[in-house]
């Protein structure tokens, strides 16, 4: 498929909730880690954007299968007209994974930075200057919900939705509800939280390296 090369536009301000839905491939049922693809739906189930990992081909398959989330990769988010709007780059890291977020013109929006933790899942959402905007510290017993805090106050939540035992066991078919609970979030903050939902899936729910 040929994708348009001009930059698109994605307005997340009108949406108070988004559903990130991983598109499932049959090969995953047989243990093959395929290219990650997601559709992003609004509250009424209408597609507002979609996201796809850019590492194609056999090399991409090998890296996904054997390096898991350690690999370096790029995820592009497209608007409903298939025009690129957000680019997320994941550099190779053994520890403290990072996802760097850029807009369609290549301007940095910020990054997601994993932090040291044991018995909890911790990461920060940083702005373009590296300042921590939101902190996420999800304890081990709350495995499905990630609350984004600013100055100790919740501003957004990413919650994994249960999709049924069969799919949870055998595929990475995940659904994430992104809830922008605070109305005052800026457009770039919403985009960072949306990218964080993808980071959560890749970091905590994708099958690990073989």
């Amino acid at each position: 498929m040929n994708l348009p090369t001009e930059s698109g536009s994605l307005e997340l301000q009108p949406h108070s909730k988004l559903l990130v839905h991983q598109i499932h491939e049959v090969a995953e049922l047989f243990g093959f880690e395929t290219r990650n693809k997601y559709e992003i739906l609004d509250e009424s189930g209408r597609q507002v954007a979609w996201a796809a990992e850019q590492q194609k081909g056999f090399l991409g398959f090998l890296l996904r299968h054997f390096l898991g989330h350690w690999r370096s990769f790029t995820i592009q988010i497209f608007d409903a007209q298939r025009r690129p709007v957000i680019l997320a780059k994941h550099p190779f890291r053994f520890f403290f994974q990072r996802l760097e977020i850029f807009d369609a013109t290549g301007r940095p929006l910020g990054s997601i930075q994993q932090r040291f933790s044991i018995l909890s899942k911790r990461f920060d959402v940083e702005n373009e200057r590296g300042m921590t905007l939101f902190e996420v510290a999800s304890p081990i017993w709350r495995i499905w919900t990630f609350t984004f805090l600013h100055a100790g106050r919740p501003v957004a939540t990413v919650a994994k939705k249960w999709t049924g035992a069969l799919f949870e066991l055998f595929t990475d078919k995940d659904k994430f509800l992104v809830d922008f609970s605070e109305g005052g979030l800026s457009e770039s903050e919403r985009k960072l939280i949306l990218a964080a939902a993808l980071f959560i899936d890749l970091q905590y729910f994708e099958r690990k390296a073989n």
Partner: protein
Amino acid sequence: MKWPALYGRQSGELEITGQTVRFQSENGMDIEIQIRELMIETGGTNSNLYYLRDRYQPSLSITVQDPAPIKILARKGVANAGSAVGKARWKLSFRFLRWVLPVAVVLAVFFLLPYVLSALPSSWMDVLVPPQYERVAGIKIFELYKPSLHVSENHPVQPKLQAIVDHLVERNPQLKAHSPKIYFSSSEAVNAFALAGGIIVCNRGLIQKAGSINEVIGVIGHELGHVEERHVTRSLVSSLGIAGAYLVLSVFTGSDLATLLGQASNLLGLKYSRTQEASADDRGFEYLVRSKISPLGMRDFFKRLHDESRSTAAIEKHLSFLSSHPVHEERLYRIAYRLGQLKGFEPEAAPVSLAELKVLADQ
């Protein structure tokens, strides 16, 4: 000097100018707080954040992450700036230690303890896993893997190999408790190995490669050393510990740390098998001497493999033996040293000849 800062969630830069701290954002926001009215608080769940607040207007709050401006403010006499940096540093250290200490305890229990247990003297090992239990388990494991080991139970060479074992056991009564039994494998790989429960397997490749009967007996003596020292069971106990630690760390920290532990345990395993090899050499040497079999065969066989292992082709050829029995200079020196200590030793004829062993092995 300017530092990245936030006012609310508005991104900008912080500057310390004379008697004020100043925040400026790209969209023109400009806020100043007098240093004498400044109050500094620390916060942040994952990282250290410093909140610079006007004590008379606490809602006027600038956030920085870099401790450098706070240190400058401490030098400028801001009352709690110095303690804020110290407090933030302690908070991170405490969080680190709070989790590192329990993990260290888990590691000690699941990893080091079995490692220590596996290195206990034989008498302790007998209490931990009685030899009769090992024997039962060993036979079951052997039956399970027999087809893949190419073992032929009624092969004509088997009684000859058992005669060698019986000869060594007769002169070394401590081996009787393990009732060692040897099996012949038609594998061409140059190898012999001990399994749990006193079971030894000798490959056809080893008999074909041997230059003298003493070399075959030397290797069998070495394997009997593994049997007496119960190395297979020790390795199993040690592996269970590592597997336990891997499981616990996987649950606590995700797979990354657990994977590193796995790598570390591989290295430890290698070191451990070297220790086992040296110990099996020592035991084997003693059995040979007591049985009046020349230990030169043991040395010759290992030395030949060691010399040949310098060429890639030979490594491939003898990979099987070398991978399970790493031959190091150190091992050869130890055997040579013990040979040098041997005074007035008169070897006797071996119970079996190499020629008949080779003929029978080829059948």
